[in-house]
């Protein structure tokens, strides 16, 4: 039986219903994405008997606020259809498996597919679950306690399309106890240069962040919790590998080293 499946392929809705992945009524709204690694897909079923799937929902483009892998829990992918595109949101916790032998009776869906860049994004997003940067617990706690977190999440939703990375310049792994001795932080918003308007949008985002930190962490005239040293918009073809090695990538809905959820909705 020929195996044509690759990581990032979608199962056709009719086939997903036949496989018992979702109900017939969900054919238009739900999507089933193959996330097993291509090597595991190619391996014999005696070695890799199951295929891992991620389940998602079709969303409107203006609701696709989790692009580019900024969110740890959700990923919005842009699929190619005959005319235009289709956005779908996948949640990292909506996983399930299907028997490889069953899936091999079908072929990947050819009406909606993800181009190479979206598949690369999917691969990175899946990997970040286990490899993302860590921050001191006190830093994470103060990020929330100060009220900065909420505004920062808004930024993520609004500007995830234009930002290819948010990097924190935090050269401090100590666990602090006194908020009046704040962590010193720099923020680098790395924007996509494929659109010349993105620089202005990233610079405006920097202005909003400067205002946010000043309002939340410097209300009394002195920095408390977090001191924002700088916020810089920087082009993706100027941000260097050296910088990536020095700075830490911030993912929205970041978790602490203790692994406890930052909000109770998780």
């Amino acid at each position: 039986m020929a195996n044509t499946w690759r990581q990032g392929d979608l199962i056709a809705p009719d086939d997903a219903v036949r496989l018992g992945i979702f109900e017939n009524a969900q054919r238009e709204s739900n999507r089933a994405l193959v996330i097993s690694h291509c090597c595991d897909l190619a391996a014999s079923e005696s070695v890799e008997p199951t295929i891992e799937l991620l389940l998602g929902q079709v969303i409107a483009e203006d609701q696709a606020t989790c692009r580019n892998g900024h969110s740890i829990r959700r990923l919005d992918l842009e699929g190619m259809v005959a005319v235009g595109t289709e956005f779908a949101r996948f949640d990292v916790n909506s996983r399930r498996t299907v028997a490889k032998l069953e899936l091999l009776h079908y072929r990947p869906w050819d009406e909606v597919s993800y181009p190479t860049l979206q598949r690369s994004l999917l691969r990175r997003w899946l990997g970040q679950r286990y490899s993302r940067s860590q921050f001191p617990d006190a830093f994470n706690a103060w990020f929330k306690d100060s009220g900065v977190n909420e505004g920062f999440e808004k930024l993520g939703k609004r500007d995830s399309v234009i930002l290819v990375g948010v990097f924190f310049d935090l050269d401090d792994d100590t666990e602090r106890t006194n908020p009046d001795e704040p962590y010193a932080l720099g923020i680098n918003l790395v924007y996509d240069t494929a659109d010349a308007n993105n620089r202005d949008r990233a610079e405006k985002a920097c202005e909003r962040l400067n205002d946010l930190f000043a309002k939340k962490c410097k209300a009394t005239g002195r920095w408390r919790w977090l001191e924002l040293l700088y916020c810089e918009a920087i082009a993706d073809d100027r941000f260097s590998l050296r910088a990536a090695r020095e700075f830490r990538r911030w993912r929205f809905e970041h978790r602490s080293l203790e692994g406890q959820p930052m909000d109770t909705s998780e």
Partner: protein
Amino acid sequence: MAQLFAVTRPTIYSWQSGNAISPAHAHQVRKLADALEPHLALFETQIGRIAQRAIDGRTTLLQMLSKGAEPDLAFGHLAAILNEETAQSERLSMRLRGRNGNRGAADLDALS
């Protein structure tokens, strides 16, 4: 380049070899060269960033020029972008100066 002048690629090679060029095309070449001249030093250092760089929305320099944009404005626009980004690079270098360059950031693959 051929698209910019609405000619074939061999025609461009022919001009480069010193063969005759029509007055209209010669005028166009001169106009481009004049507009380019003030920015030559900058562009020479950033040669890979010029032609395909989006300078107006998703439109690149060559696309703008092909659509009939004024070369002075188009080159000036690109130069402004490159100058600002050069300043970004310099500020980044300043911030990284003196650091060991390897905190062991976990998700380096995020750059790929």
